[in-house]
């Protein structure tokens, strides 16, 4: 029985779609998860193994058990932090895959990534401080303060003065007393997600997606736009930045995504993550270019040739919804109307009735989205933005 073991998954989005893709490719899907949500919503054709602890020792033990009952495990994969590099290491060990797990491991830590790239042109000014020591920054305000292990914009703060610096430090210190905190120069300019696959040392930029960011105390991506065309010189400089980073990180076989800003001083690296971006990213790339990136990543990891040829060029825009008030969700209106709008290909809302909703502090506080396609980026954007305005959340104030 050919099988792929997935370590962790979200209930929707890229990581969830990866399980469907593996099933389509003819593999038995085995999900190791510590999320009880999967026990109630079992994905079709997937074998769910609930584990209270997801440390490497426990996961290794579980994989050995699966091998003993004759599963022919072809790869161990994770599209979820912090399991990506652990899955790659176990995959290489048990399935003889050749994934660059050391590079993936490096990308899982923002400080190590910055240190490895400190001489790269795309790096920004940065500084590492220890949370429990009184210390000021040598980087000028405004700057970015980050928990080095954060994801989804949690514990990433835009700091404009000393007061904000002290407050944000305390927030991060709560969970990370004595640990290191990353301070980065604030880089202004349009921000992009760059999805990359490296196949036997050959990097391929699969897709470029522009992000619209609402910047307050934290950063929330409120819309994504598939980039169909980019100025040749700008693309060339992006290509150089991406390949030089991949080379330095040592990624020879694997996938990752960059978050970069384009500035007057060239491309600057904001983040580097060892997996496809979560949420709607896989679906957007499929709608725009006809490439199911998680499916092709699975093929890459099991040693098959990924098919990264674009089958279409369609403008895609995804608009996310957040709220300005705090309250209990009483009702949701307008979903059917939004889904019926011209060009709309996907509509989802996350919260269930009775759930508490609040203004966004992290990307987890985005409560729904509308994805639309169009002949041009402007048309796709207009369709998505018009449709999402039809969705209404009714909140009972707390």
């Amino acid at each position, binding site marked *: 029985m050919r099988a792929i073991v997935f370590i962790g998954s979200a209930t929707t989005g890229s990581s969830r779609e990866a399980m469907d893709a593996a099933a389509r490719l003819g593999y038995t899907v085995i999900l190791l998860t510590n999320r009880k949500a999967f026990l109630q919503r079992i994905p079709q054709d997937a074998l769910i193994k609930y584990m209270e602890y997801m440390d490497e020792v426990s996961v290794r033990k579980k994989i050995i058990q699966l091998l003993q009952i004759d599963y022919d495990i072809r790869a161990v994969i994770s599209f979820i932090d912090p399991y990506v590099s652990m899955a790659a290491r176990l995959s290489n060990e048990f399935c003889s895959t050749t994934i660059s797990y050391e590079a993936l491991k490096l990308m899982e830590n923002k400080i190590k990534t910055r240190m490895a790239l400190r001489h790269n042109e795309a790096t920004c000014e940065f500084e590492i401080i220890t949370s429990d020591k009184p210390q000021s920054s040598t980087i000028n305000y405004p700057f970015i303060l980050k928990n080095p292990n954060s994801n989804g914009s949690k514990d990433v703060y835009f700091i404009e003065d000393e007061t904000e610096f002290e407050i944000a430090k305390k927030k991060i210190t709560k969970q990370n007393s004595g640990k290191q905190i990353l301070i980065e120069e604030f880089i202004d300019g349009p921000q992009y997600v760059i999805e990359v696959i490296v196949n036997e040392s050959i990097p391929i930029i699969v897709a470029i997606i522009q992000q619209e960011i609402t910047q307050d105390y934290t950063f929330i991506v409120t819309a994504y736009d598939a980039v169909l065309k980019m100025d040749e010189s700008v693309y060339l400089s992006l290509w150089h930045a991406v390949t030089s980073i991949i080379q330095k990180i040592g990624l020879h076989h694997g996938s990752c995504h960059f978050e970069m800003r384009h500035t007057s001083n060239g491309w600057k690296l904001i983040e580097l993550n060892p997996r496809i971006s979560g949420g709607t990213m896989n679906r957007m790339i499929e709608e725009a270019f006809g490439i199911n990136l998680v499916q092709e990543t699975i093929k890459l990891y099991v040693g098959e040739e990924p098919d990264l040829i674009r089958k279409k060029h369609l403008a895609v825009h995804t608009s996310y919804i957040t709220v*300005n008030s705090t*309250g209990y969700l009483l*009702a949701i209106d307008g979903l059917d109307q939004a889904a019926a709008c011209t060009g709309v290909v996907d509509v989802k809302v996350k919260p269930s009735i009775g759930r508490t909703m609040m203004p966004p502090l992290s990307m987890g506080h985005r409560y729904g989205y509308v994805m639309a396609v169009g002949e041009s980026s402007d048309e796709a954007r207009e369709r998505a933005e018009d449709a*999402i*305005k*039809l969705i*209404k*959340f009714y*909140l*009972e104030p707390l």
Partner: protein
Amino acid sequence: MKMYSLCEEIKELWKEQQLLAEFGKGFRFIHVPQQDTIPFMLLTADHLTPFTAIIEGDSTPYFRVEHVYEGSYFVQLSLLKPIDLKGQHAHSERDLFSLKKTTQNIVINISKFSTINPLSHDLVGRPLPIIESKT
């Protein structure tokens, strides 16, 4: 016996409503939201059909006791307007979100009914929900 019982129940509800209206008045250390209504429905003998009255072209099965006439079965009620969460007239119990007090009164003979179905006093004057959408 049944008529007598229902009349007593209405009187008791009226009494409790008056106590509710006085509750918390003069408190210095805590704020108690002022409430003065115990809304209720009246059911006829078949227990199925709630009694309704017409308000602004729609019907309402929700009432407030305004006065109980001693020594008779007559009761003065004011009409409570049912509102759904969009602020429109609620046409079913399922859609009921809030009850709005009105000055429209009726006098009824309580002996024609079999059951009082009291509802939560929190429904009366309940503020409409916040509506959030992407702007």
